């Protein structure tokens, strides 16, 4: 029961294929009105305050993932009817189908807020449920007042819902009231049917869009521009026609966007994992990233590796531990930029390590890599790899990384750069460690093992100097690896 108060949308249990229950609770604006929230709790604990606490609102349920508003096809019950839990009350038409909606509670249908044939956004109250007859009048009064202010509060409530995240208080403090519509009077916006549909879909306020079509009307293109969508116009036929009475229409189609496949080639659709990789890689294009490389001598690390190898420590664990320790000193490199407006400093240092597995790519995460010792880390890593092979990784074991490590050194690759995964601030690409002739500060040549690391970072939050300082710290740790074993 208590869960009904949290979210309107997610708590819609499907009792049967064609019947959906709505969740009813006090008010759609619950998170905004703490006082009512308390009232409700009182009632729950038995202090039956005979206030409006027993009037529940019936909400427009979300009947499909794409549904944004629903139309009331018919009210099966009419005002004053007694309802018992599980009974169908109203038929709602979504973008997909008509469905009976049933009630969770016993009570009396006190008032119908949205009449038959009208639509309401998902989550908006469509009717009021009273527990006793005395409350009907009160519910009706409430419905009447609600009618005046239209379903405007509903979207506001939805917007306030994600305020659960423990983000700096400044951002979510108070959802500003919807800005008053620019009442610049009689100017009428004319929008084409398709433009109106697109505007609804992308939540664009048509009245704010400047129409570029004939007679200043708003065209679908205007809406797409306003919503920031690059139009992938799939060959609309009409323009070809507008061209004069050209008898041959065929050669006009010169703009074939994709090259045809060579004969005999095979097309293999992406697996789920490959689709996910593809999606992540595309997303990275929206992040302004830059790269900084750094040479590191590894003789000391190699010597340490030889020493701890028999104890089951892997090079991956060594590098992860080193990176984690360096990150602890440079938290900004462990941060991420989620909204383009703020830094999110992560409380944990979770090193994701890219692994090629079964023709795919996955990044098992060594959580709290800075806190675990080398041996535990190595053990953890073995477990993760086994799970990854068996496809048994839990989501938090591959998507909770705050920094990624990618190592192609074992193939002899001397340097490469990596693509920044979404949601992370930086990724490190590690090349092979190779014997190299090095001149020291006194001009003496020597041969030492040297590897090149290359870090790709999100320049919105990580700047060149940050990255350089981090790499310096990292190289110091690698060159003096005793601290790794502590």
């Amino acid at each position, binding site marked *: 029961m208590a869960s009904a108060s949290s979210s309107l949308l997610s708590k819609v249990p499907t009792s049967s294929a064609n019947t959906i229950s709505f969740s009813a609770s006090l008010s759609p604006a619950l998170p905004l009105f703490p006082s009512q929230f308390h009232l409700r709790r009182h009632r729950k604990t038995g202090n039956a305050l005979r206030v409006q606490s027993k009037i529940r609102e019936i909400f427009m349920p979300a009947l499909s993932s794409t549904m944004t508003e629903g139309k009331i096809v018919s009210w099966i019950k009419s005002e004053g009817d007694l309802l018992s839990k599980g009974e169908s009350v109203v038929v709602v038409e979504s*973008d997909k189908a*008509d469905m009976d909606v049933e009630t969770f509670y016993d009570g009396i249908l006190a008032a119908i807020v949205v009449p038959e044939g009208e639509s309401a956004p998902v989550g908006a109250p469509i009717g009021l449920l009273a527990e006793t007859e005395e409350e009907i009048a009160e519910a009706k009064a409430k419905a009447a007042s609600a009618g005046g202010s239209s379903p405007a509060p509903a979207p506001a409530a939805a917007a306030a819902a994600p305020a659960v995240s423990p983000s700096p208080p400044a951002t979510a403090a108070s959802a500003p009231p919807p800005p008053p519509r620019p009442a610049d009077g009689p100017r009428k916006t004319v929008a084409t*049917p398709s433009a109106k549909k697109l505007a609804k879909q992308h939540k664009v306020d048509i009245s704010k869009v400047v129409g570029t079509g004939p*007679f200043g009307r708003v065209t679908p293109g205007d809406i797409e521009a306003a919503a920031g969508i690059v139009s992938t116009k799939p*060959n609309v*036929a009409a323009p070809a*026609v507008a061209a004069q009475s050209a008898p041959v229409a065929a050669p006009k189609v010169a*703009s074939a966007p994709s090259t*045809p496949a060579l004969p005999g080639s095979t097309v293999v659709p992406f697996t789920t994992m490959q689709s996910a990789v593809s999606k992540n890689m595309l997303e990275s294009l929206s992040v302004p990233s830059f790269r900084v490389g750094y040479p590191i001598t590894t003789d000391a690390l190699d010597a340490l590796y030889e020493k701890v190898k028999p104890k089951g420590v892997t090079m991956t664990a060594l590098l992860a531990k080193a990176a984690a320790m360096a990150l602890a000193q440079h938290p900004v490199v462990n941060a991420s930029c989620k909204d383009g407006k703020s830094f999110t400093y992560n409380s944990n240092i979770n090193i994701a390590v890219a692994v090629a597995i079964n023709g795919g790519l996955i990044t098992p995460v060594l959580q709290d890599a800075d806190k675990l010792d080398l041996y535990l880390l190595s053990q953890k890593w073995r477990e993760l790899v086994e799970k990854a092979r068996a496809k048994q990784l839990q989501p938090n074991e591959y998507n909770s990384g705050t920094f990624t490590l990618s190592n192609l050194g074992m193939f002899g690759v001397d340097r490469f750069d990596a693509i920044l995964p979404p949601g992370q601030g930086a990724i490190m690409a590690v090349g092979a460690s190779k014997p190299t002739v090095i001149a020291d500060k006194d001009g003496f040549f020597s041969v030492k093992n040297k590897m090149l690391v290359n870090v790709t970072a999100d320049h919105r939050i990580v700047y060149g100097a940050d990255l350089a300082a981090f790499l310096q710290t990292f190289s110091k740790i690698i060159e003096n690896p005793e601290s790794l074993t502590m």
Partner: protein
Amino acid sequence: MQASLSLSVSNPAAIPRSSHGFESSIPFPSKPVNLRFCGLRREALGFSSASSYPLSTSRSSRSIARSNKVSASLGGANGSSSAPKSFDYDLIIIGAGVGGHGAALHAVEKGLKTAIVEGDVVGGTCVNRGCVPSKALLAVSGRMRELQNEHHLKALGLQVSAAGYDRQGVADHANNLATKIRGNLTNSMKALGVDILTGFGAVLGPQKVKVGKDTVVTAKDIIIATGSVPFVPKGIEVDGKTVITSDHALKLEFVPDWIAIVGSGYIGLEFSDVYTALGSEVTFVEALDQLMPGFDPEIGKLAQRVLINPRKIDYHTGVFATKITPANNGKPVTIELIDAKTKEPKETLEVDAALIATGRAPFTNGLGLENINVATQRGFIPVDERMRVIDSNGDLVPHLFCIGDANGKMMLAHAASAQGISVVEQLTGRDHVLNHLSIPAACFTHPEISMVGLTEPQAREKAELEGFEVAVAKTSFKANTKALAENEGEGLAKLIYRPDNGEILGVHIFGLHAADLIHEASNAIALGTRIQDLKLAVHAHPTLSEVLDELFKSAKVNAHVGSSPVAEPVAV
């Protein structure tokens, strides 16, 4: 004859129920749109190879005189006993549309000497300005739609690069089809010896018809089959360019970016299918509270979900278009809307074009009905169930019949033809009453909609009155192998029936090739076949016809197989 019947499923001949309401509230304009008489010259040339310019009554009277001679001798041979004098013809039909044509062919088959009078072009509305050219446009729009549906093509594994069209080419296809069918119709009548009299026909008196200016022809019986014209409510200015009726739209002289369609019945719906496939956006204006008012509500709702909502279409319901002004001086077409109930002004639309599809009005002006004391009702000629014309005293006018859109019983081309055949049956000694409930109708959108008999609300109302039980069975195209093979699983077939005796009251289909599927049901209704018998009929697998097979099998009839007597068809 076969050909003419099968192609004649009418769209513009249909009058959506919304327009009934519309007409009754707005007086019928005194002068119907006068566009039909321009075809006289063409018809004269088509009629005979003799190039006689200028066109004069002397030529036509000559041709009449020639046929007079023939008929005189024939008439003498027949020695018609009932009539005091001899007639030029046994049967004369005014109007050579699909209705007149069907009647003429059947009359000849029954041995009647028959003439048909046409003031415009043979074929009438259906062939020249209705169902036939619109099917050509819809054939194009259906293919365009398929080629543009990337998702659908991909699911079939097809790769097609950008689909485009040439407007003139599409328009030519429609025009060529009309010309071809018109030629077929003309030839079929000529070959059978039906005299085609060119000129505007009017009833002069009992058994007497005037053709053209002053040629008088007599016939034992007369059938009026003058059809209908697009109905244009007052306040709407049709300029034929930006404010148009179906007559203009079928010529497809331009494809507007945005067109408003006034009326969401068959005609409006089909044109919305054509225009959206060709890249236009569409706004419906409907006087009633919901779109597609003539259809079974459930089918209408599903159709709206498939044919309206996902397409570039929006709509205004419960509004009248009181004033429509064509585009002029760089201004768009404006449409003034008022609330259908309160008559309050609501909104003014600005669009690139407006198509008036508010139904059709009977074409009965100038028919000389006053000569025989017949008064039209809102333009329709009153008839009884045998299509006999009723005069203003309520008496039957002897030897005068009216079929098709002009009587308004059922404004469909094939209904007109069926009525004509029914009349000829009566004239040749076999009493016949047409069961209108067995006449199917179809709307050729993609996918198609078809229906026969009663809608569910009509059936329930009738059941209430007559005290029987009504049941409904439904099947989905999603369960049909052939539909799934075509990747066109969207669709529903609905059967409304009496569970006590298995009588079919109505069948409604929305889905792939629905227009072709309906005939199993319409034939069953016409022949009085009961569901329990249909259940045993075999359908080829896998075919779309199995949708109906499933439908009949899913019906629960209490009566036993073959136990119910076949009922006589009921007249309406």
